């Protein structure tokens, strides 16, 4: 069986959940080989984690010489690994960095790139089939790579991680990184502050606020905590400076597809819909009964979020006991 390369999504060696989803998908397509580009002293710990999800091999690339540069060195490393391993496919987390790594890799390997897959299935005759959700979630596409090694960037929640023991054989790999790949320098890096809540793109429940909050996100955050949810925001709330951009749900922010999405004081413009329309269950609270968000909802309350949300939060906390 051919190897399937999976680029591990991590922060300084702390593996992020989409990695396990990618490994689960990789098992459908061949033999998962995890690629770790990061601090060498974390490699053993990372290996222990990814082998539980089926990594037969773990390529370890010490990033001490390349971590100060954006995207390009990772693409060169993956290119050289791909030439060595001749994988059946290369799976990359669909983060903004991951997509750019895939972009450069695609040109280097003269191989087709599919971005933002929400599902990937094996089809032995013609290579993996990827599903995408496009046009603000109004269309579903299936497609495949027809030239070169399939390179697919995969969105969070595309699969349920399945534990399955892999050999986790470590292979150190030292790519030759050109000077040309070291031209965009990471001068400073400020890690995102932990919120203590689930990661927005990974959360099963997302509670969002928009213009209707008037800048007061307390009712949103309290409801989110009662439901164990992540907090999101519309672009209007971000543009008003009420929430940081990392909370933005929509076309130019995060795309989420949780089990439950609760939109509060959000009118539901197409740009916002693009980021949440594929959520399984949608609930909205809005004062304006004409708000387009109500066209999407499974349940809607026409009312003021500042009175409805605290009452719902209290009711939920009471029911939870």
């Amino acid at each position: 069986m051919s190897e399937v390369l999976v680029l591990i999504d991590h922060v300084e060696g702390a593996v992020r959940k989409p990695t396990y989803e990618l490994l689960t998908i990789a098992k459908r397509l061949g033999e998962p080989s995890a690629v770790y580009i990061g601090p060498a002293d974390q490699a053993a710990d990372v290996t222990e984690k990814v082998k539980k999800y089926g990594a037969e091999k773990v390529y370890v690339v010490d990033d001490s010489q390349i971590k100060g540069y954006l995207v390009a060195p990772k693409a060169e490393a993956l290119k050289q690994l791909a030439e060595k391993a001749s994988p059946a496919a290369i799976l990359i987390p669909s983060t903004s960095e991951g997509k750019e790594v895939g972009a450069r890799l695609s040109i280097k390997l003269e191989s087709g790139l599919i971005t933002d897959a929400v599902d990937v299935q094996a089809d032995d005759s013609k290579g993996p089939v990827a599903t995408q959700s496009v046009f603000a979630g109004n269309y579903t596409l299936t497609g495949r790579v027809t030239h070169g090694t399939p390179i697919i960037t995969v969105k969070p929640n595309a699969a349920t991680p399945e534990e399955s023991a892999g050999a986790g054989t470590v292979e150190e790999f030292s790519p030759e990184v050109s000077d040309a790949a070291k031209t965009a320098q990471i001068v400073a890096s400020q890690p995102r502050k932990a919120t203590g809540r689930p990661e927005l793109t990974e959360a099963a429940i997302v509670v969002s606020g928009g213009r209707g909050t008037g800048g007061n996100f307390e009712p949103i955050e309290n409801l989110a905590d009662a439901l164990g949810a992540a907090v999101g925001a519309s672009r209007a709330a971000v543009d008003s400076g009420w929430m940081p951009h990392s909370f933005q749900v929509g076309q130019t922010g995060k795309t989420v597809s949780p089990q439950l999405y609760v939109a509060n004081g959000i009118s539901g413009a197409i740009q916002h819909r693009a980021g949440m329309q594929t959520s399984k269950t949608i609930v909205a609270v809005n004062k304006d009964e004409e708000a387009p968000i109500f066209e999407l909802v499974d349940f809607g309350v026409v009312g003021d979020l500042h009175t409805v949300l605290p009452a719902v939060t209290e009711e939920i906390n009471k029911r939870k006991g």
Partner: protein
Amino acid sequence: MNIVVCVKYVPDATADRQFESDNTVDRVGVDGLLSELDEYAVEQALQLKEKAGDDTEVTALCIGPEKAVDAVRKALQMGADKGVHVSDEAIAGSDYAATSLVLAKAVEKIGSPDVVMCGMASTDASGGVVPAMLAERLGLPQVTLASVVETQGDQVRIKRDGDTATEVIGGTLPLVLSVTDQSGEARYPSFKGIMAAKKKPLETWSLSDIGVDASEVGLDAAWTAVEDTTARPPRTAGEIVKDEDGSGAPALAEFLATKKFI
């Protein structure tokens, strides 16, 4: 300084966007416009010009069918100095790789740019990968996804809001720069700008003008194939209640409990 700003003509997101029978995006039957996210790129290009001085030239570059020239015109109205529209039937159906090839060849023909400016993504495909592909093809530094752009001489620094960290990225001109919708509101064309745009140079190039063979682009040359497109079934109408005398909250809690979210 020479700045090339790449602009895309996209189907209007508020219209009913659809696909052709060959699974390519319908770019003719649906009203189109300059991609909103590329307006931010035009804005940042113009701000760089204003800072650098009058000998700076901003060229708006667009690939697309005949109607796509509207995107170039809008950029000229906003303040770009000249326009280039690469239009050739053979380009229809091109994937990311072929699009980046045509853009790269056109940029080379425009000649030694200091900055190749792009939006963060298009509003139709939303891939966000073409700027990185352009950097790869042109062999230029990739300084992408800027929410803040600062320049000093030939040095560029940007703020990049990544997935897990906010970074400061630095590079030396020439380079490929992409900007997000956080980089600053795009200006509206003024009446004066609209009138002036009519006199600005606008060239239309074919593939042969930029030295790209028709066999390298288009649907048949694509490295990926869309096999099926399905419209998402409309969501079934949900239950909507009015919050009267505090009735909304218990009704919502009951709904959440029925769905086992509590």
